[in-house]
């Protein structure tokens, strides 16, 4: 399985000194992230540390106060944000499938409207992506008829159908029943192994340890510590990370 089945190769993602204020409250204070092409970066940290805000800042759902975002080594701050988001796939904790559309339409809508594929081509693409997540047989169903794990796989297929260069996962398994988590994490790990550049915000330390190239620990809007998973989990330098790991492990 390769990440660029739909024609776009993965690229590097770099965030430099990101500052973000939301509703008058400073949420991100100078965050730096480096994700070379094909790497998986796991972002961990306590609730409210700014992880989700970081993802939404990097695909410009929230505009930055200051800082720079480089995709493939080039700043994207002057690009059309809608166009930028077409290149960055995102998967949410609550799946956010469109309940009024069938599974097939959920996946085919964006390729048809944004990539201007013909309805038939968009349909074929959607079926391919659904097949990839093992849900081709549910193409005609409504989101409400699927389990949480299935919905999340559809959400992943929906993001992949836009042939993104980078994928963001925002606590994608947090809302799932425990028995569903494993399958979803395997799918995400497969995607990373296939060469997709990924930023994965997660509470699953096992996933961060085994499937990521780099782990970033955030607290209070800052990157406290980052490094390869072995270093972060076996040899945490900072007291805050040590305390966090002792609480979650």
């Amino acid at each position: 399985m390769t990440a660029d089945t739909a024609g776009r190769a993965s690229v590097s993602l770099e965030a430099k000194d990101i500052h973000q204020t939301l509703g008058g409250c400073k949420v991100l204070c100078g965050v730096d992230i480096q994700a070379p092409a094909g790497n998986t970066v796991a972002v961990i940290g306590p609730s409210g540390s700014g992880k989700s805000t970081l993802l939404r800042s990097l695909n410009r759902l929230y505009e930055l106060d200051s800082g720079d975002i480089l995709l493939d080594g080039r700043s994207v701050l002057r690009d059309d944000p809608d166009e930028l988001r077409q290149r960055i796939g995102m998967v949410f904790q609550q799946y956010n499938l469109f309940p009024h559309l069938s599974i097939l339409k959920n996946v085919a809508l964006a390729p048809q409207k944004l990539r201007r594929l013909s309805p038939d081509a968009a349909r074929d693409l959607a079926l391919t992506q659904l097949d990839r997540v093992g849900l081709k047989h549910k193409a005609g169903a409504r989101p409400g008829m699927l389990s949480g794990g299935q919905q999340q796989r559809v959400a992943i297929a929906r993001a992949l159908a836009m042939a993104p260069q980078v994928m963001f996962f925002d606590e994608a398994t947090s809302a799932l029943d425990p028995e569903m988590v494993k399958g979803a994490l395997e799918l995400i790990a497969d995607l990373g192994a296939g060469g997709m550049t990924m930023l994965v915000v997660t509470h699953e330390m096992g996933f961060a340890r085994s499937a990521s190239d780099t782990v970033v620990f955030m607290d209070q809007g800052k990157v406290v510590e980052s490094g390869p998973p072995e270093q972060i989990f076996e040899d945490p330098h900072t007291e805050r990370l040590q305390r966090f790991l002792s609480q979650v492990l």
Partner: protein
Amino acid sequence: MSLCVGRRAKRGGKLLGLTATILMVCGLVLAAPVAPALADRNQCAPPGLDSASVLPKDLTENRVVGRDDDATTATVESLSAVDIGELGLATPGVLTVGTLSDAPPNICVNPEGEFTGFDNQLLRAIAKKLGLQLRFFATDFSGLLAQVASRRFDVGSAAIKATDPRRRTVAFTNGYDFGYYSLVVPAGSAITNFSDLAAGQRIGVVQGTVAESYVVDTLHLQPVKYPGYATLYASLKARQLDAWVAPGTLASTVIRRDDPAVVVANAFSPGNFVAYAVAKDNQPLVNALNSGLDAVIADGTWAKLYCLWVPRTLPPGWKPGSKAAPAPDMPDFAAIVANQHREPVGPATPKSTLAQLRDSFFDWDMYREAIPILLTTGLPNTLILTNSAIIIGLALGMVLAMAGMSHSRWLRWPARVYTDIFRGLPEVVIILIIGLGIGPLVSGLTHNNPYPLGIAALGLMAAAYIGEILRSGIQSVDPGQLEASRALGFSYPAAMRLVVVPQGIRRVLPALVNQAIALLKGSALVYFLGLVAHQRELFQVGRDLNAQSGSLSPLVAAGLFYLILTIPLTHLVNYIDTRLRRGRAATEPEKDADMVSSTFGQGIT
């Protein structure tokens, strides 16, 4: 029905109740005696010379002396001197007439939907002399003079008495008829004269008529005001009123022998004659109508129509037209009356209240007469009005909803103000403001046709409600839906259009259907603007037939049509509501939607 039914037997109980109701209604209808032939019931047919009467004695004996007749012109210009291009008509060559549909024999609509009666037939004759076409519009008496003053109508024809207060608003032609008041009371009432009227009694008058000012200014009493004669008289017969101060001719026409009502006294009005009203600054039209009136008096048309529609003795010292007009050649009414040997009008055998109600509400012949007109005229117009208003309301409502959710105050505030105004005003006020306020400004576009204005008023009103419904629906959609669409790369408008708005509309479908039902019923209010016969919607058709016959059955028939339209819609709402609830149960992240649909769903029954 006091049936004690368990929850399981509820459906059976409902069915039983329905059956019982139907049987009761059928029984009442079947028990009714064969209704009199239709021709007898048409109060808008000319009564003819056979119905001639002499003026009541109390009129000639205790005559109230009005002001001197200084308004009648000494003479008129000759017909050939009238230049119909100079008459200031809204549409050249066409006389636009504001009239009423419910005051026979002077002004009424006949079963063919034609505006007729003595006043309108006389106006037709005058217009023919002048070489003018006529277009009649029905309106309410309370608004008629204002509409004439604002030139919505060129002429007001409604047995209008030319009183001094009215002369401050409009100009009048010379007189073509005279008027007096009759005091009508329920059979067996203790009231026998105007002097018996006292504070605390419910005295009915039609709003804006001289009867109203007579009761207020001369008798110094507070009357109960009605918009039209038909409902007023129905109220009196149902003993909801103690007395009715009525125009004399009208009273003697509408009171039938077996009605539980009787004329006990008569009085002359201080306003001395009946005339056509014209806008105050339109003296050329007054002069032209005066010329035409003298012409139809001279050739005998006036006398012919008078004997056909309102045959009764002229009061001493009064004649129609200018002072130079020849005295009309009248038959000896007293002799005709004497030959007829008619029994005096009185409460021969008053019907029981139940029989009275049955005649009013379940007159089968009236249903047979009403249903074809309701079907061919009322139903299409109601549907056109409602559907056009819904389309305007949806389009404008969507704009309002979007503006109301905008981040820019320059969009949000106007939407807010619009919604507050159009939701806050009574529907009648909006219709009158749009129809009579905006109407004259756009008369070039509408040719004084109130129909498009009615549609506009209903549509603008609907937009305010629909906008709020749509906004609440759209705002109830989980913000994650917008975020997910934006994350896919959709622009804000595209995300709204493809993802958020379709979901929002689904949630408020029940509320939207409810709004459509409200609008359907609200379309009846368009009659305030004055509609020509073929523009009348269901309610107006029912109302006109009610005025023609005095029976309430046509209104009930119109009501049935409304039910035929609204009941399926109501059930559609319930169906959608249930389906939405069932759908919700499977879709976890949308619990709030359930709340929205059920909140709106409650208003249905």
